[in-house]
Every structure is written in structure tokens, then in C-alpha cells.
């Protein structure tokens, strides 16, 4: 496996605030990695560093390039949709396609046209005339038509209704992802992307608190639903997090085998959202 993104001891300070704190990780080709963290955890700062929009300390390499110093080369092979990277409101759809076609070496105008034909977006419309959902569709169509090695999505579906959100991720998997391309996604709606991730990274207070493959999660983490004495017994196995559900206890364990918990109650694999809360809140406790 080749590393597409490789970070070693990456830090970023804003005056005295440590937005990203000595972070190291690798993202391999063909992976869909969810970068999940609470507001202000440093997600966007980390993505900005990956996109070369901000300088950072440490060693960061994206597609073998220094993202901040080799931005133009980087941008030929990388695409991003950020909630804050809005399309210009004055431009017409066909102008936007014309422009990108003439400056982007890896953009396929015909592919973008095919994708847009499936939507209600008209070539002559101005972006300001489109709904927020349609603007996101337009943006995704453009990016899908770029033959990029890495796609970075920072809260891409913020402010969209559930139908557009489902459609967005559906299109992402069907039209964009082909096993060769690599995607990094951040979002608050963890449940919605859980099924499409291959890897997950949790970030809190600028530090990475979990970096795992989705396939490894069931082995590493287990959740027990128990009550009464069973819960008391299970508590001795040092759960990383505990919460109440309908009068029962839900205990989450890291590195405890399922066999040891069998018989104490219902054993299951925790959802990413619960795991996230456990990791972040557990660390704070």
C-alpha cells in the first residue's frame, strides 16, 4: 500500500492556541477516511494543512508533495468541497464548466455534463438562482468529473435536507469512488457516513485519539448492555465509557474479548457515533 497522505509530528499554532498538536498519521490509497471531531477540535485546520491552504510545523506530505509550497501541482490531483468554499453566486453553470475546462488539466467536461443532465440544474442558470442542495449537486458533479487522486470533503452536506444528504453520499459512492481514489470526509452526521467509511480518525483538542480501520473496530471495541449485578461485574473490567439506556447500563470496552462478556448481557459492536462520544468524553473524564 502506498501512503497518499503522510503526517509526522504536524502542529499548527494560532498565536498561543494549539489547533493541531503533534499529529502523525498515514492515509493509504483507495481508502475513505472519516475525520471526526467536535467543533474546534482542529479538523478544519488539519484539512487546510493537507490542502496547502495553511502552513504548519512538522512533516506533511500529500501525494508526495509539500502541500503549502507545491500547491499548484497539488491542486491538479486533489479536489475539495468545504462548506465554506462556496461557488461564486454571479457565475452561470456553463461559464463555470468553461472556466474549469480551460484551467484544469484533469477535468472532463463531457462527464460533468452527463452528471448534470441527471439533475434539474440548467446550464444557463446562475448559481444564485439554485437552491443550496442544487449548488452542492453542481459542486459534486464538477469534482466527480475531475480525475483527482484525493478528494477532501469538509462538512459537505451542512445545511442540506435529508434527501439531498442521502443523494450526495449515494452519488459519491456510485459516480466518484472506484477503489482507486481516496476520500477524506469530515462531518457532524457520523451515522450517515458510517457505512461508507473504510477508516476512521477521531480528533479532539488537536490530538488524534483514534486511528483505526473500520474492519478492526469490532475486534477492538465491544459494547455490553447489562443491568444489576452483571453490570457491576462488567464494570470491574474497566469500561472506557458508561451510559444509561432505559434503566440499563451500556458499557464500552477497549481490548476486552467478547467471550469474557458473553453471559453478562447483550454484546454488540458500538456505532461510530457512540464510540466517538466514549473516546472524547472518556478522555475528558
Amino acid at each position, binding site marked *: 500500500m502506498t501512503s497518499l497522505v503522510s503526517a509526522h509530528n504536524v502542529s499548527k499554532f494560532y498565536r498561543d492556541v494549539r489547533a493541531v498538536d503533534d499529529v502523525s498519521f498515514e492515509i493509504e490509497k483507495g481508502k475513505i477516511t472519516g475525520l471526526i471531531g467536535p467543533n474546534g477540535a482542529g479538523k478544519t485546520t488539519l484539512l487546510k494543512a493537507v490542502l496547502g491552504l495553511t502552513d504548519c510545523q512538522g512533516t506533511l506530505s500529500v501525494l508526495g508533495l509539500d502541500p503549502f509550497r507545491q500547491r499548484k501541482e497539488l*491542486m491538479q490531483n486533489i479536489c475539495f468541497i468545504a462548506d465554506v468554499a462556496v*461557488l461564486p453566486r454571479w457565475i452561470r453553470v456553463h461559464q463555470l464548466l468553461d472556466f474549469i475546462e480551460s*484551467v484544469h488539466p484533469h477535468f472532463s467536461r463531457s462527464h460533468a455534463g452527463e452528471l448534470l443532465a441527471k439533475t434539474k440544474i440548467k446550464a444557463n442558470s446562475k448559481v444564485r438562482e439554485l437552491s443550496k442542495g442544487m449548488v452542492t449537486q453542481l459542486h459534486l458533479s464538477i469534482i466527480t468529473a475531475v480525475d483527482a487522486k484525493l478528494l477532501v470533503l469538509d462538512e459537505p452536506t451542512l445545511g442540506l435536507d435529508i434527501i439531498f444528504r442521502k443523494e450526495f453520499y449515494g452519488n459519491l459512492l456510485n459516480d466518484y469512488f472506484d477503489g482507486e481514489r481516496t476520500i477524506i470526509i469530515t462531518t457532524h452526521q457520523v451515522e450517515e457516513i458510517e457505512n461508507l467509511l473504510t477508516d476512521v480518525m477521531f480528533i479532539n483538542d488537536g490530538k488524534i485519539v483514534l486511528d483505526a480501520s473500520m474492519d478492526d473496530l469490532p475486534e477492538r471495541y465491544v459494547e455490553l448492555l447489562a443491568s444489576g449485578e452483571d453490570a457491576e461485574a462488567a464494570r470491574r473490567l474497566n469500561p472506557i465509557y458508561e451510559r444509561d439506556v432505559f434503566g440499563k447500563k451500556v458499557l464500552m470496552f477497549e481490548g476486552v474479548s467478547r467471550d469474557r462478556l458473553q453471559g453478562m448481557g447483550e454484546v454488540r459492536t458500538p456505532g461510530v457515533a457512540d464510540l466517538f462520544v466514549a473516546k472524547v468524553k472518556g478522555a475528558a473524564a
Partner: protein
Amino acid sequence: MINNQFALIKRELWEHRAIYVMPLVIAVLVSLMSITGQVAVSGFDHAVDIGILGATNLGENERSAAITVLMISLSSTFVFAMWILITFYALDALYAERKDRSILFWRSIPVTDFDTVMSKLLTALVVIPLVTFVVIVVTHLIVLLITSMWLGARGANAWHLIWTAAPFFDNWTATLIFVLALSLWLSPFAGWFLFVSAFTKRSPLLIASLPIAILPLLERIVFKTSVFAEAFFVRSVKMPLFAGLDNLELLFQEGKDLKMVGDASLSLMSLLDLGQFFGSVGLWSGLVVCGLFTTAAIYVRRYRDDS
């Protein structure tokens, strides 16, 4: 690189439609005014007929000079509008993309900040003057055509009066040189405006005007000198393009009565001195200042981090 510049400049024209809409609106207004003007003087039939007769009897040089004056008076409105356009365009060029938050999108496309800012500088200093020039030429033709029709309706020979006498080549070449030279001469202001539009968080016009107004004043109070005031004044009125004539005295010399300068065959090209213009320290120091501000604008766009 060249293809990119072409696409980027086309993009500027899509976004800033005033670049061609404003000259076109002025062209329509000027053309309408030439019609109403001719209708208005038609009330003085006798005097007008005598005037036309007098014009018909003038020599070719005199007719040529008279038409040159007409063409210049038409052009001057556009040149004035051009500078207003350059000012407002440059102040908006790097500000609008931050105001509408599209800058991250533009920066997600493989175009360097250098190329983007250069496309905006080229639009201000070359594209706007060229568009202005084309609209001036079209307006000249329209107004002269309207005048010909009016003369023809009064029985005069418009072909003889206007079209054989109008020094089109001389006038248009000089106009083209003039608009481009003017934008180069005023380029330090354009560079400053671009720089302001790259860094200011609000009111680019106000932020850009303040130093121009306050620096000379401060200098006067603190140092009792007027280097800035003179630099701004010289930059505004004394472009070294004209051979032996000041800007303001281009066509007429002030005396008891205004009278036309030189012989009656008024060649505008003969008034221009390109050697003097390109040899002047003022031009090159202005371009250096423009370059410094542009570099600063590129730097700000590249390194700004708004988070």
C-alpha cells in the same frame, strides 16, 4: 500559462460586466445627445445653413481639425469613465471573492495566486483601456454617421464635409496609445487599489482614499514639505506623453481668446512623444510602485489564513 490568462481574463469579464456595460451605456447616451443636439440647433435654420456653407468652403486641413476636435470631445468622456472603471474594478477585484466567500473555491482550482492576481492587473491596465478604445471607435462612427444623415437631409455634402476629411487613422492610433499610456502612467494607483482590495476587511474605497488624502496633509504638518502632494498632483495632470505641451493645453492655448494651436492640420500623433514617455523616470518609478503593490497583493492572497 497564456491559456490560463485568457480563461482568467474571460472570467473577470463575466464577473465585472461594468467593464463593457458602462462604456456601452455612455456610447448610447452620447449618440442620443448628438441626435437631440442636431434637432435643437435646427431651430436656428438660417445660422445653421450659413455655418454649413462656411464649413464646406473650408480647406481640408481646417475641416480635418474641426472633426478632430469633435472626436476628441467624444473620446474624453470615455477616458474619464475608463479611469473610474479601473478604480472601482481594482478595488473590487480581490475583495469580492472574499466577501462572497468564493475565494476557497477559486483556490481549489489549479491556478496560482500569481496568475490570478496578474489576470486582475492585466484586466485593469490593458483590458479596460482596450474595451474603452473599441467603444470610442464605434461611437465616433455612429456620431459621424448621424451627423452625415443630418447634413444630407439639409442638402449638404456629408461625404465631402466629414468622411474625406476625418483623420481616422491618426486619431484612433493616438487614442489607442493615449488610453494605454494613461493606464500605465496611473498604474501605481491601480496597484495600490489591488493591494487594498486584497487585505481590507471592509470599505475598500474608503481605505484606499484615506492615505491619498491624509499623507500629503500629515507631511505638510510634520515635515513642512509637500513631496507627496506634488507626486500625486504631477501623477494626476502631467503625463509626459505630450510633445512640448501640457495635458491641459493640448488643443487650445489660453490667451485672451481660446485659439487653436499650431497649424490647422491637427495631427494628434504629432503631439505624442513616445520617446519622452518611455524615457521618463516618472513612468518607470510608477511601474515599480505598481509592481511592489501587486507583489504585496499576491503575497496577501497566498498567505492569508482567515480561520
